[in-house]
């Protein structure tokens, strides 16, 4: 690879690196005694949700026909949001646990 091409590639990497992630956020949702807190969150595409499970029980964040994130006991689980829309989710193991994510561009 020539020096010019390397420089060009580096520049692309740097620009790419500065453009997207600076805007994306990690949104934290706590799980405490079988409740998602906060229950409803707003986000934008590129954001990531981190569920932090304080319970001694395994939970999930599951969108019907969509994402299914396993959140082990006393651990966390993450989901990268790609599309806009409003998504209701539940815990597959404890279907009375309910939350909603609204993704707006």
């Amino acid at each position: 690879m020539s020096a010019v091409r390397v420089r060009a590639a580096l520049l692309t990497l740097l620009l790419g690196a500065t453009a997207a992630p600076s805007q994306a956020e990690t949104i934290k949702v706590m799980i405490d005694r079988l409740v998602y807190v906060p229950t409803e969150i707003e986000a934008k595409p590129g954001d990531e949700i981190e569920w932090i499970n304080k319970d001694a029980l395994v939970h999930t964040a599951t969108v019907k026909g969509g994402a299914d994130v396993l959140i082990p006991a006393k651990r966390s689980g993450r989901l990268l949001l790609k599309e806009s829309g409003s998504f209701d989710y539940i815990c597959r193991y404890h279907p009375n646990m309910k939350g909603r994510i609204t993704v707006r561009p």
Partner: protein
Amino acid sequence: MTIRLTTAAAAIALIFAANGALGADKPTDPQIAHIAYTAGVLDIEAAKQAIATSKNKAVVEFAETMVRDHEAVNSQALDLVKKLNVTPEDNDTSKALSQAAEAKRQELAKLTGAEFDKAYVEHEVAYHKQVNGALETMLIPAAQNGELKSLLETGLKLFQGHQQHAEHVATELK
């Protein structure tokens, strides 16, 4: 079948009501720990029977959750009694619960397929209803230790969820 299920539920209700009515015989913390632990173990055994017998995905998934959750809560309970240096104490309520569970296990062992699924899930609804009632009206109010009370309260919330989950599976089976 419905009559037999109702009888089992009524038997459990009576056991708890009798204990509650005695007033002075309110269970002690070591007895409460034993009752709560036993109730969990019995539900795990019932769930294992369902996992081995049922071919229904919703029923098996529900039973797997029962095993996972009750094992997690019982392990917390064991950690707590160890920390508090309490020895769980066997008592009439625990014994009656175990006897009722054994009778139910034998009854369910005679069933297969959809009949088994329906009977198991209906029993899970009734069982959680009764245990939750006992937690609310007898075990939680009687618990003296704050940490034990708090664990029972978390358990109640979880088991109320189990009851709703079982009710939902029961509707799907109809």
